[in-house]
């Protein structure tokens, strides 16, 4: 079974925000919710780098560990999904996540009335029946079930953002890094997958 991961190549990302737009459009994400965002370091000065950030579908996912209702889970492909029906909007996943992936439709509302958490699904929908209206309503399109990869990566004009099987991503990135002789760091991988030694295979 493939182990799905994201990889953002900071040497290639040009901060076009195409991934952000693609994601919002594909899943018809509500206002105020951004499952993916692009962050730029040293904006406008030497050493500028941009990185696209979303849920990294961590191996030892902190959100799963702290969720009081146990609604966040790993699929067989290592994708971290959640069941909105049992979500109480406590915000613990938001406290724990290193990448700031969990989003809330009401934002940081008074009395903790954030609404149900929303995050990147790796375009793999949710626990509802594949391609059902309920699934699309809650989680967006299930591209993985259609045999397609996440749209953000598919749309990426510079192929900075890659999504797919970890082993293949590693191969592509290693070859790129060797060719250009720089930019060897796969952004966020230590944080997201560092603890799982088995994943390196």
């Amino acid at each position, binding site marked *: 079974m493939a182990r799905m991961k994201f990889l953002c190549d900071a040497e290639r990302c040009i901060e076009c925000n195409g991934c952000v737009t693609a994601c919002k459009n594909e899943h018809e994400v509500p206002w105020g919710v951004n499952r993916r965002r692009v962050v730029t370091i040293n904006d406008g000065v030497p050493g500028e780098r941009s990185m696209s950030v979303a849920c990294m579908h961590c191996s030892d996912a902190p959100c799963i*560990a702290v969720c009081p209702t146990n609604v966040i889970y790993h699929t067989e492909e290592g994708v971290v999904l959640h069941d909105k029906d049992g979500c109480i909007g406590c915000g613990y996943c938001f406290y724990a996540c290193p990448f700031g992936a969990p989003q809330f439709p009401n934002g940081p509302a008074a009395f903790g009335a954030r609404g149900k958490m929303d995050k990147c699904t790796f375009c793999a929908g949710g626990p509802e029946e594949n391609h059902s209206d309920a699934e699309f309503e809650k989680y967006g399109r299930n591209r993985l079930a259609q045999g397609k990869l996440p749209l953000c990566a598919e749309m990426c004009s510079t192929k900075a953002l890659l999504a797919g099987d970890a082993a293949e991503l590693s191969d592509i990135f290693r070859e790129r890094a060797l060719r250009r002789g720089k930019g060897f760091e796969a952004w966020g991988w230590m944080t997201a997958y560092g603890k799982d030694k088995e994943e390196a295979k």
Partner: protein
Amino acid sequence: MSTSLMRRDGRGLLLALALWLLALAPPPVLAQAEPGDEPAQRQLREQTRQRGEFQPGEEIRQSEQVRQREQTGQREQTRQRERERAGPLNDAPMWRQARSGDEFFTTVRGPEAGVLIQDEGNTWRQMRNGPIKQYGSALLLVVLLALAVFYAVKGMIRLHAAPTGHRIQRFSMFERVVHWGTAITFVLLAVTGLAILFAKHLVAPLLGHDALGVLLVVGKNIHNYIGPVFLVFTVLMILAFARDNLWEASDRVWIRKGGGFISGEHVPSGRFNFGEKTWFWGGVAFLGLIVAGSGLVLDFPNFGQLRVTMQWANVIHATASILLIALSFGHIYLGTIGLEGAYRAMRTGYVDETWAKEHHALWYEDVKTGKPRHS
């Protein structure tokens, strides 16, 4: 029209090709020129040195040159360091920034959207899922067990003398409303709060995932909306009971005799004994305000507090809550099955004279001599 455009296109392509070739050309030329220049300069310098011509003032000029060269060298080093810091081949500073938790530029609006990686979340996770859950559950179980053992050995502490049938007022209506307001909100918050922390491990395996979901959806809303009410009652409670919980001379006796819990002896005390005062100041006032205050930080995230603030608020909230719940077990035990007449006192506001004499002798005397210390 179309043909001319095509021709212009063709010419443009040729031009671009030529420019591209030109652009490719310079680097090798420069690369050849530079090493060529370097030996020539070195040769010139060597020749000057070999000639060894000294002129008046040469020594001063030389030392001046050395100093200048040193300064230039230092400047070069600094420049090199700066270049390394921002240089394209040296990404280390940039990755340090990425992991720093600082906010950077992003077009997305949201709380801390510009932060790439925040490490504090993991610290919080380790503390909450580690010590707080482990020591917290152990403490609560140990206290419950200790109370069960105490009850099994000693049973309910009963009155020694027969009740007189004369009842005197112990709590006013206002005091009772405040007490039960605090008590009910506290129990609701304690149950729902413990559910948020532990139900995942207890309810889910026993009753299933759906039951856990329903319990916590209801529980979280009760917790979040009742929380501020608890704070109001806690403040009223402190105002209502503070005066009679101040230190008295009789408290020293009570401490020395350990409250008479083991011996069964009744230590004379005022309206509240030292045990009650400990619960009042340590539990209700101190822990109660900490729990309520840290709860507000979590309950109202709309004031722009950062994740790290809420993580620490949660650690404080959970720790203080568990301590408060552990203390409350003792209070609830003595207020219900532990001590005869205690529950009735708070429910009706009245106690029998015998009860007053046996448990709060000094207060009983005050009441009898007509100088009740409470209003």
